[in-house]
């Protein structure tokens, strides 16, 4: 395939849904609320760890306007996972629609559907619950202590794939690998470090909270409209949990108001579906912002030990990583997130000795889940901080140390084969890698040469520059599948039906571009419909940086099939051989210049004239590789040495995502991820009281950045060509969030010599670090 002669791909075409969205058209779940819909409300546990001794729902049930009350006593008891992953899921079955035990403040106790939100709220309050409180387990250390209370003592808790699962020890997952011997390499090494890092809990904060609406249609089937990244997993898991056959359930995904992984969770579909199924009325449930913080999903915090060693020449000889993640009350994504802390970070640097362990522990805190970066964010902070620390020990520029050791085209890493998602990984050699250029261009844009040594910096306000290198993946190889269906309409337009899930990323547009490029038309001729389990073919959904790479290949293949059919019809019309024809700009031309037909002519002929048939194709794609996108990030910060206040002055992100199918959207992915990463590094954090209750469940007290906080941002896309990707594309959506924590930590050190190994980097921590210096 020609690399550069793109007509639609790599062009900033119109984003298909941008204008309707800017006009405020009804496109989101709650916008479809019928007038007779009931409102659902949930009753949440006020205790971090307790047994429900009794529940009395009679007063709530009797209230006028209340149509349905659900609790553990009147719904099926089916152990499942809320993690929207492929089947069988790598996350343990440790969750019930409602349980007799509550495991964190904000755990689900009961649900009400009523005529108005006010009645639903009053009914929730009228439910009487008697709890027997148990000792809460509120940290990784407490969870692992001998004799710690067991959070999942229910007999049903189990792993459904053969992986270690030890709930009696509060361990939700374990994984590991060794190549060579890190201990030995450390023992004799002239340069080495063995440090511990901690990275914190955070919330995705989609501006549209979780929202689901369900009704029973005229055929008696349950229709669930929901803001989900995983419509097919949502159908499967909701059906399983409600004990309703899959064929009775239809899941429709309209536009989604942001997800970032939070909506890779089957969180509300089961309970809203059950309320609608029982009440036979449409039911709407939208989380409040407080609920989104407490009772949605979070980034798994991790305690990470990094060991690095280098020989006398400063060549890296060992990388060791031990990650313990806090999965909270349930094991959603517990195994795979901590596994990705190894698999998406360790391959970046060549070293003969590699060690990794990942452990996920249960605690009585909000539940971990998928969050953009997915374990890589956590480990990148630790490893990229440690690389800077080792560089200082060796006395080498950290940029040079990284440049000398990072993986390159044609190279492989034993980590790829060792670490998969719940099973062994898939061996792969790196195809495209533009990391060298990312480092070079990024360093130039930030002014790397001017950074200097912190010991020579003076004055109250001191500036510093830090960097990091990153990789991610593109889909989960040999596991993920995406399919696409294309058909031609009589005016030469095409319907592209996909299970792939545009959650605001613009994937509908990107995939339309791929279809248009493959067929030989323009993207405005592609009418995209995604996703609807009754109408569109299967797709695992929007996660693991997969849509462009994975579904894109399915779309490309379907497009090429369509092209072949168009050429066949045109050949019949023009009395030529298909090989003597070519497609340009939605027309078929005879190569000898003897004539042409338009796509409309072809479509009309195929539908009405002779040998009629529907020009249509369906293709499925599974990936055999997960080619990493690469990035080099650079942050310039200014630290106020009197207060510890830190300001990001400038941020440069240089990213190799292969061919950017839509450069503006690709930049948007990087910019959004970087900004999210910056406030994660500096201001976002969960604050809990001693009983495990979140204290700052509001945007007033959980600070995400706004327009005024935006630093100068430079986004550089470094084009490469990934041969296995559609038109050379790799992923871009996740990688950007991994950079700010390490780049800013390294910049703070460069500014004032304070090494922060616990995120977020609050002024207090910096100030305390400065005081230690001065002492």
């Amino acid at each position, binding site marked *: 395939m020609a690399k550069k002669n793109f007509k639609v791909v790599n062009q900033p075409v119109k984003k298909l849904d941008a204008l309707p*969205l800017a006009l405020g058209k009804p496109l989101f779940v709650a916008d479809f609320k019928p007038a007779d819909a009931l409102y659902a409300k949930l009753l949440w546990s006020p205790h971090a760890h307790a047994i429900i001794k009794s529940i009395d729902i009679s007063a709530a049930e009797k209230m006028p306007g209340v149509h349905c009350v659900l609790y553990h006593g009147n719904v099926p008891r089916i152990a499942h996972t809320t993690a929207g992953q492929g089947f069988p899921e790598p996350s343990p079955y440790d969750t019930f629609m409602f349980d007799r035990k509550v495991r964190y403040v904000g755990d689900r106790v009961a649900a009400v559907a009523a005529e108005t939100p006010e009645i639903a709220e009053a009914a929730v309050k009228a439910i009487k619950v008697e709890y027997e409180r148990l000792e809460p387990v509120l940290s990784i250390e407490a969870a692992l202590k001998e004799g710690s209370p067991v959070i999942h003592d229910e007999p049903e808790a189990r792993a459904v794939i053969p992986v270690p699962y030890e709930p009696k020890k509060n361990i939700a997952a374990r994984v590991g690998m060794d190549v060579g011997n890190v201990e030995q390499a450390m023992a004799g090494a002239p340069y080495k470090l063995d440090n511990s890092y901690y990275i914190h809990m955070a919330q995705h904060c989609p*501006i549209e909270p979780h929202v689901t609406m369900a009704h029973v249609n005229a055929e008696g089937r349950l229709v669930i409209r929901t803001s989900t990244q995983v419509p097919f997993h949502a159908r499967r898991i909701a059906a399983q949990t409600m004990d309703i056959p899959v064929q009775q359930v239809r899941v429709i995904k309209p536009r989604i108001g942001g997800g970032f992984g939070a909506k890779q969770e089957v969180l509300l579909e089961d309970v809203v579906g059950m309320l609608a199924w029982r009440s036979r009325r449409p039911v709407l449930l939208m989380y409040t912002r407080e609920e989104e913080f407490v009772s949605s999903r979070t980034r798994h915090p991790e305690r990470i030990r990094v060991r690095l060693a280098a020989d006398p020449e400063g060549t890296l000889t060992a990388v060791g990583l031990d990650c313990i993640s806090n999965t909270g009350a349930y094991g959603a994504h517990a195994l795979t997130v901590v596994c990705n802390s190894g698999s998406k970070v360790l391959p970046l640097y060549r070293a003969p000795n590699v060690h990794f362990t990942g452990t996920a522990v249960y605690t009585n805190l909000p539940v971990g889940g998928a969050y953009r970066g997915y374990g890589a964010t956590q480990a990148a902070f630790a490893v990229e901080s440690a690389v800077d620390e080792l560089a200082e020990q060796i006395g080498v520029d950290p940029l040079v140390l990284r440049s000398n050791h990072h993986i390159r085209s044609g190279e492989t890493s034993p980590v790829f084969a060792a670490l998969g998602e719940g099973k062994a990984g898939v061996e792969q050699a790196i195809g495209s890698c533009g990391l060298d250029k990312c480092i070079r261009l990024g360093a130039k844009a930030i002014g790397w040469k001017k950074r200097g040594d912190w010991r020579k910096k003076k004055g109250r306000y001191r500036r510093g520059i830090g960097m990091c290198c990153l990789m991610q993946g593109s889909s989960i190889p040999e596991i993920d599948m995406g399919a696409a269906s294309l058909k031609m309409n009589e005016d030469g337009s095409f319907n592209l039906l996909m299970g792939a899930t545009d959650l605001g990323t613009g994937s509908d547009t990107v995939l339309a571009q791929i279809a248009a490029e493959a067929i030989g038309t323009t993207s405005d001729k592609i009418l995209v419909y995604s996703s609807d389990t009754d109408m569109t073919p299967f797709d695992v959904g929007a996660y693991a940086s997969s849509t462009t790479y994975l579904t894109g290949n399915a779309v490309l293949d379907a497009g090429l099939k369509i092209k072949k059919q168009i050429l066949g019809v045109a050949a019949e019309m023009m009395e030529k051989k298909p090989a003597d024809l070519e497609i340009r700009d939605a027309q078929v031309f005879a190569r000898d210049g003897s004539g042409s037909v338009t796509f409309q002519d072809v479509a009309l002929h195929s539908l009405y004239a002779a040998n009629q048939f529907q020009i249509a194709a369906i293709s499925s794609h599974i990936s055999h590789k997960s080619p990493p996108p690469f990035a080099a990030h650079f942050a310039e910060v200014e630290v106020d040495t009197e207060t510890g206040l830190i300001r990001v002055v400038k941020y440069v992100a240089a990213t190799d995502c292969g061919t950017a199918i839509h450069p503006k959207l690709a930049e948007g992915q990087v910019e959004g991820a970087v900004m999210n990463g910056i406030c994660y590094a500096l201001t976002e954090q969960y604050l809990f009281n001693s009983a495990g209750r979140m204290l700052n469940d509001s945007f*007033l007290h959980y600070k995400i950045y706004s327009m005024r906080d935006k630093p100068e941002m430079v986004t550089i896309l470094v084009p490469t060509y990934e041969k296995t990707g559609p038109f050379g594309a790799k992923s871009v959506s996740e990688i950007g969030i991994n950079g700010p924590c390490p780049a800013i930590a390294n910049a703070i050190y460069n500014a004032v010599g304070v090494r922060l190994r616990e995120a977020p980097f609050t002024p207090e921590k910096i100030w305390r670090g400065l005081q230690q210096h001065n002492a």
Partner: protein
Amino acid sequence: MSTTRTITFTLNGKKRDFQIAPGELLVKLLRRSGLTGTKEGCDEGTCGACTVNVDGRAVLSCIMPAFLAHGRNVVTIEGVGDFDRVHPIQQALVDAGAVQCGYCTPGLVMSAKAMFEENPAASDEDIRVHTDGNLCRCTGYEKIWTALRNVRDANKPAQA
């Protein structure tokens, strides 16, 4: 319930009567009246998705009691533009690639509209201040920033 009362205000150019419940918030009234372009993201005045214009000023409709709209002039996103009459702010956001999930976009448009109507030559600092209350988790604000400065720059010749 008998406690409802009637208020009158101008909504997107038309004077209309509305039955409201005690304590009903403007965003709830708008959305149940079929104007779903005004979004709910926090219900506590912190995210900006519910921004509308009341007498030309940007107002958070999730913390404004509906009765306060009585006698006033309310404009929602539905009153700003449509497919056949796209507002320059909407067009600029679309062109700059500033619309990702789009959930915050209507509120942002309303904040920007109020700002530019008061001051077509809004400074960079004005733009920062007036859109500071419109949280966006998708874009990192970079393309929104570009779009709004483009609107301002396009306004300038008209001023001169």
